[in-house]
């Protein structure tokens, strides 16, 4: 299936292992789900790669310039822009953003509201804070029980609790917002 998209190059920020690269993705010829050629460039690296998308969400990659090395990488989007990749039995996290998103992220780090989310599905067994409480970074906010274990969800930042969205006994999904912390940074 050829898609309508896939003409010009696309530029994305890709962060893997703590390093962010500005990657240019450029299709070479028509884009087809059964196998397409792309040129990828970042810093002084250039790869030409033959890629096929598999039903599982995995990508099959063949790199002609590297002795036709064949690889399979599983990809799963855990949150918008956040990917969990599987490479040769190992897990890798990747973050893909564009320029606008990156600025938004930087601003959030400087100050503002931080949504504290459930790291896994579970049940809220204790709330350790109330709206208006002042918290230090790393301080426990909520205790979520999952798989017979209690897990304390800690504050990512120093700040004031501006909102509490979970209550004891709630069943929460992974990624559900539990508490919002307002930090005192400056924009």
């Amino acid at each position: 299936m050829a898609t309508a998209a896939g003409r010009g190059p696309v530029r994305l920020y890709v962060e893997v292992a703590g390093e962010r690269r500005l990657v240019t993705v450029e299709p070479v010829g028509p884009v087809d789900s059964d196998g397409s050629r792309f040129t990828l460039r970042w810093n002084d690296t250039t790869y030409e790669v033959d890629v096929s998308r598999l039903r599982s969400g995995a990508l099959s990659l063949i790199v002609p310039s590297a002795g036709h090395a064949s690889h399979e990488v599983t990809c799963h989007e855990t949150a918008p822009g956040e990917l969990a990749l599987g490479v040769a039995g190992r897990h890798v996290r990747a973050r893909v953003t564009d320029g606008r998103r990156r600025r938004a992220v930087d601003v959030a780090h400087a100050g503002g509201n931080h949504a504290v989310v459930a790291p896994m599905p579970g049940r809220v067994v204790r709330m350790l804070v109330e709206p208006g409480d002042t918290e230090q970074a790393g301080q426990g906010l909520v205790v979520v029980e999952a798989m017979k274990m209690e897990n304390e969800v800690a504050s990512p930042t120093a700040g004031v609790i501006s909102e509490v969205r979970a209550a004891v006994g709630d069943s929460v999904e992974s990624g559900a917002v539990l508490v919002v912390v307002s930090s005192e940074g400056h924009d």
Partner: protein
Amino acid sequence: MRILRACREMGVPSVAVYSECDRTAPHVRQADAAVAIGPSAPAESYLNIGRIVDAARGTGATAIHPGYGFLAENAAFARACREAGLVFIGPEADVIDTMGGKTAARRAAVDAGVPVVPGTEALVDTLSDDELCARADEVGYPLFVKAVAGGGGRGMRRVAETDAVVAGVEAARSEASTAFGESAVYFERLLEGTRHVEIQVLGDEHGTVVPFVERECSIQRRHQKVIEESPSVAVTLEVRAALAAAAVALSSAVNYTNAGTLEFLLDADGHFYFLEMNTRLQVEHAVTEMVTGVDLVQWQIRIAHGERLTVDRRQALTPVGHALECRVYAEDPDAGFMPAPGRITALRSPSGPGVRNDSGVEAGFEVPVFYDSMISKVVAWAPDRAGAIARMRRALTEYEVVGITTAIPALLWVLGHEAFVSGRFDTTFLDQALAERHGRSFSDLSAEETDLAVMAAALFAYFSAADTLGRGVDGTGPTPWRHAARLNGLRR
């Protein structure tokens, strides 16, 4: 699933019971009949004896296999089954009582002439602090305070000196009463540098007990088994014969029937000490099946129906090749092995020569938050240990679980660790080796692999954006790559 498979091979119809969250689990769909027994919380379903017995009666089932979790070692459940006219596929309730209680089992072992780890009887609540310390001093340090009803490393505290005895007892008692509903504890000497070996036995109702070649389960994280194998590299033919004789002596002394496992600690000089007995099928039974060719679950069912054991003793004690088992949990090894339940979006299970994967999950399955997070047991067999390790590494690399995080990267690291490969390890090896990593990621990538990850992430984002635009759908909220697609003029 393991039990269902045995039933089907024997032509025995099966009934599965399930809790709310397991409605679509493979074992429910594959069974010949399935009965809902209540909400997801174990206490209201899988631990509810009355509902399970009613389910059996309602479907006309004649026997119950208790599996290896929940009620598998529960004497009251065994009694309830028999009172309801059902065959309980396991030992007699009285035997579960005797061997399931750790101090009673130790007493039975001493009576049968089997060496035990130095320790005490259950400590009565009325002992004063001074008396507790005196008893601990007699046992010697370091020691464990252990729950009489314990298992899985819970209700257990290490105590290194007299000053720590009282606090250790209190902590173990409180953990034991939460975990097992019974706070009784006892002292047991901690023997250092020992390995965990265990002997599988089958006993029939006609007085025959057959011991099997040992399994070694020294690769443990916080007293939970992670990798098991058979045979053990540390067991000589003489030690194997002695272990088997001890296992038979103790099993026969208590008239043990059906499948059970006797756990021992083995020191560097080949001395062994009885630890405890598991009065059920164990998770790691598959390695024994792989090296002996005996189907233990089928035998459990046959024994429960009064059949005589015809397993050849020599075959049972003479391993063919070597087998390893890895328990694959939904947990994040880079976050201190925190449970990581969620939905498995895609799955490719390992297969090929010498690989067995006993699994209860599949693509689309939501790993429930209510139960143990083990998603499968991968077993690899090869003519020798080195071959089995290579095969296991191959199998785990092939295993793709998308959507959740698994401990596979950590398993691959252990399988490549020099101490594991050489066979020079004891039960403390894994915890020490993990501590020495100081939290370093198990997923360190080479430069080439990092490039590969960068390419895959960029291409995945590219395709996601192209899909969105190609369909002309502008989903519920803008994702970064939809932004990216727009910014970069994909719409032109």
